[in-house]
């Protein structure tokens, strides 16, 4: 998590000295942070829940369907389909995505783990990463049933 990202505009309420400490990530002298350090070291992250994933999907996620046209090759078609040559071969693609700030890359990896390592995590640019799954079998067997909290989507 980027502390400055979380602070946003609120940093203006700090004094110039305090802003200097925050922006440059400097620990002021005489401040005891041992308990904080201990707390961070002992921090145990909760496992992802379906409600949390729903929240991410609602805010930063997407699910879409698209069509692709592939020119049929006559040699690939059996004789019985020779009359269908005028009809282009159409395929249907899916895209299930969740986008996060690059500081939350580990969260996207956890999401991939939540979905039984299906799909992948990719870099969009220096600020963003994306979890993406598009395989029909992944969607049928894992992602949609988990999102719907069902054993299967049927």
């Amino acid at each position, binding site marked *: 998590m980027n502390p400055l990202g979380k602070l946003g505009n609120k940093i203006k309420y700090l004094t110039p000295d305090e802003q200097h400490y925050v922006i440059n990530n400097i620990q002021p002298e005489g401040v005891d942070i041992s308990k904080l350090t201990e707390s961070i070291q002992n921090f145990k992250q909760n496992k992802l829940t379906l409600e949390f994933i729903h929240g991410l999907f609602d805010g930063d996620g997407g699910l879409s369907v698209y069509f692709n046209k592939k020119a049929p090759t006559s040699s690939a078609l059996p004789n019985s389909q020779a009359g269908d040559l005028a009809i282009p071969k159409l395929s249907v693609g899916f895209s299930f995505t969740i986008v996060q700030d690059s500081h939350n890359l580990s969260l996207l990896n956890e999401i991939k783990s939540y979905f039984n390592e299906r799909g992948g995590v990719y870099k969009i640019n220096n600020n963003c990463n994306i979890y993406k799954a598009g395989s029909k079998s992944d*969607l049928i067997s894992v992602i*949609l049933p988990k999102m719907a909290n069902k054993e299967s*989507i049927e």
Partner: protein
Amino acid sequence: MDPSDLNLPLLKYNKIYYSSKILERLSEGLNKENMNEIIMLSYNVRQESGDITLEEYVEKVKQNFF
């Protein structure tokens, strides 16, 4: 799937619901018989946003791919 089962806004719930329906239909493969129904179902899960009616969408897909 019942919308009340999921804590999701209807728009997002619809995407899961209609994607599931399309995948069910696709289990038989994409063919002349189910193509029209799949195109109509995909209206609810389309990539592009913006105002477009179901009829306009179906027409657009058919123009682009046939």
